[in-house]
């Protein structure tokens, strides 16, 4: 097994894992039924309440095709034979499901589309009527809108009756309503062959475009603010790193001597207690006792600061979060270090060194430290995702506007694009960190391979 072959297979499996994770995140995203076009159309309707139905339809269509939400979800789709692929292009959701129901009940496709165009014509005619005929125009508008969302026989029949009464009351409309009435009175029977399955292949689909956009760093726009998701995450990143990296480095550097020297039972008891106490409890107690004026007013409870402030203000804000990250990493890192040092203590070369009469400190520093620290370095890769995405708890408790807090706020406002982007990024960093630690291990200790 050559080394290049091993690297190739690891890259292949990495790609497979990344693709699968992307698919899972896409499922998460599409389960939320988020559609930017719907929200934009609601805004447009609020701004212009008197928008014409034709314009509304056309704008909705163009918005949907711009955001890609009129595309099918995946490469393969399973649908019924009587339902054409073009049904997806109809923008309003209720109209789409109504048309689908009519098609399944064996209404012919051409009849349905004619009815639809007629209803649009009728509505634009009603909108063109003068103000003196407002009564007629309102009734016609409501009639033509219900035409588009009627989805079964009884509602179609009642619409035909309405058309009758309308043409009796206003004989001028008889010509316009006659062909609509004829279309409404078509008699049909339900047939089982409408429900035959058909599998279609779509070369353009939402998953493909989502994947392409995601891989190029474009996660769409946030529902809450309308900003680019990548911009929001990029803005939040420095705050996360400012707290997590010093805490981790402190823990990492201190755990090496701690794992070698602090080997008695009292230290391990203290470590055990720190590891047992939940982190959010510690952070909460810190906030409670070190930042409020009731107890000790040493630090600031808010860490997220901007601008040109003196260093002491930053120190006051970031000291407690850094300590929290330190306490989160320190016990595990020290236990790892202790384990790898213990492994070295039993090796023959240490026995030899002892037999030669070398001083204990010399053995510890020269022999054990040098050998035990190498596996420890590989832990750098494994903690990468936590460093980048930050701890939601710590950032929420200390009010740091980092990625963890962004995630929490997006949860509060159900901002699904941001949530799925953060999930995707942190899983990518997890995979990369794992590979990085494997690579470091191979690089540092080629003998073991």
């Amino acid at each position, binding site marked *: 097994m050559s080394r290049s072959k091993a690297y190739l297979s690891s890259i292949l*499996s990495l790609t*497979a*894992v990344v693709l*699968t*994770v992307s698919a*899972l995140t896409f499922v*998460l995203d599409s*389960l*939320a039924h988020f559609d930017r076009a719907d929200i934009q159309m609601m805004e447009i309707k609020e701004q212009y309440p008197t928008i014409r139905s034709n314009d509304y339809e056309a704008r909705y269509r163009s918005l949907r095709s711009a955001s890609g939400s009129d595309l099918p979800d995946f490469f393969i789709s*399973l*649908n*019924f034979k009587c339902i054409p692929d073009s049904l997806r292009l109809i923008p309003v959701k209720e109209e789409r499901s109504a048309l*689908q*129901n009519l098609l*399944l*009940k064996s209404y012919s496709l051409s009849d349905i589309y004619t009815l639809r165009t007629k209803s649009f014509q009728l509505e634009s005619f009603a909108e063109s009527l003068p103000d003196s005929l407002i009564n007629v125009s309102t009734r016609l508008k409501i009639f033509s809108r219900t035409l588009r969302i009627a989805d079964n026989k009884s509602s179609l029949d009642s619409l035909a009756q309405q058309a009758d009464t309308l043409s009796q009351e206003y004989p001028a409309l008889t010509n316009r309503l006659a062909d609509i009435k004829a279309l409404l009175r078509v008699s049909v029977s*339900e047939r*089982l062959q409408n*429900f035959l*399955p058909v599998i279609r292949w779509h070369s353009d689909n939402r998953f493909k475009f989502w994947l392409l956009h995601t891989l190029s760093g474009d996660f769409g726009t946030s529902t809450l603010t309308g900003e680019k998701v990548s911009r929001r995450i990029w803005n939040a990143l420095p705050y996360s790193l400012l707290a997590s990296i010093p805490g981790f480095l402190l823990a990492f550097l201190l755990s090496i001597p701690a794992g070698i020297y602090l080997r008695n039972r009292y230290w391990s008891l203290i470590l*055990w207690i720190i590891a*047992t*106490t*939940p*982190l*959010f*409890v510690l952070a*909460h*107690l810190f906030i*409670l006792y070190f930042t*409020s004026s*009731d107890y000790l007013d040493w630090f600031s409870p808010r860490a997220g600061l901007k601008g040109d402030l003196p260093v002491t203000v930053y120190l006051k804000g970031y000291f407690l979060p850094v300590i929290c990250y330190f306490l989160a990493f320190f016990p595990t890192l020290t236990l790892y270090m202790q384990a790898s040092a213990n492994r070295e203590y039993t090796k023959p070369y240490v026995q030899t060194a002892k037999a030669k009469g070398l001083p204990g400190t010399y053995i510890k520093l020269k022999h054990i430290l040098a050998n035990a620290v190498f596996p420890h370095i590989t832990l750098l890769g494994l903690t990468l*995702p936590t460093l980048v*995405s930050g*701890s*939601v*708890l710590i950032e*929420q408790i200390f009010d740091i506007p980092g990625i963890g807090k962004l*995630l*929490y706020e*997006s*949860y509060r406002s*159900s901002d*699904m694009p941001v*949530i*799925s982007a*953060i*999930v995707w990024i*942190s*899983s990518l960093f*997890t*995979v990369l960190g*794992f590979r990085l630690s494997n690579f470091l291990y191979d690089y540092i200790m080629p003998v073991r391979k």
Partner: protein
Amino acid sequence: MKKYRTYILCIMSGLLVSMWLYPDIWILDRYLAPGKDILMPPGNFIFGTDELGRSVYARIINGLGGSLKVGILTALFTFVIGIIPGITGGYYSGKTLRIGIVSVLVVIKSLFLFVYSIQLLNTGIHMVQTPAILLMFLSLLLLILLPLTGKLTGKTAGVQVNPDGMISFFTAVLSALPKFVLIIALAALFKPGLILLCFLMAIILAPGFIRIVRSEILSIRNTPYVEAAKSLGYSTFRIFVFHIVPQATPVLIVQIILQVQVAILSESALSFLGVGLPYETLTLGKLINSAREYPSCTWMTFFPVITLCSVILILRNFIEKFSDKTSNPL
């Protein structure tokens, strides 16, 4: 210290469990009805009262019950999800299975039928309801009868499948997703109740469980008595149930207690953020969260924190005791 640890452990866990099961014995408060004021601890109420005048002690007992429920349910779900992939992955590691082409076709066909029947049901049209339900049953029946089709068709043609590779790929994917972030995302999506939250947490915790069970089974697989059972011609199912699983019991117990601990911790962290469970279920995390608005009332934070820490401590102690036994059975 180590000598008495078992006794201390037993007494503490007994106290906590009896607090949960028989709260009447331990409620020393004379007045359990909601009072009017926030009261300090030494008084009528042993742990004081909260902002609505409710006894903190009584609320801790309720919250302890909720937390333990979450932990135990999650561990149960994790066990149910993870045990079969763990054993299969360990037992067939490094081997390939030949699966008959008919079985593969049956799987594809039944999946297709399942999706199709769901689509039929979604139309909501009365005429196709009965056929849709029949189709769904048929597809599930085909999946259940799958082993039979494999035996019937023999070994003429087939697809080579590496079950261990597939299982480790899925655990790799699932463990690549960040746990806490994913729970928050799923909670945003589903707005889960108690059982659904436990199930989601179990799905997220399952990869670790599967990996450890797999490595344990891998070491048991090569022991002489399993070889003997194989050479005596016992069926694979029998070897699984009577030879392999009993030997793996200590590891399974340690893993289950570990899942309980992790579930309690993550649920209380979620509740502390205000993400987790709906209003009805009270947990220790919620108690700590509700005390955040009253920083000067120390007892409202302190006693739930102590209870949570002692629960975690007891569980960790159990884990260590069992791990000692597994590494050193005599």
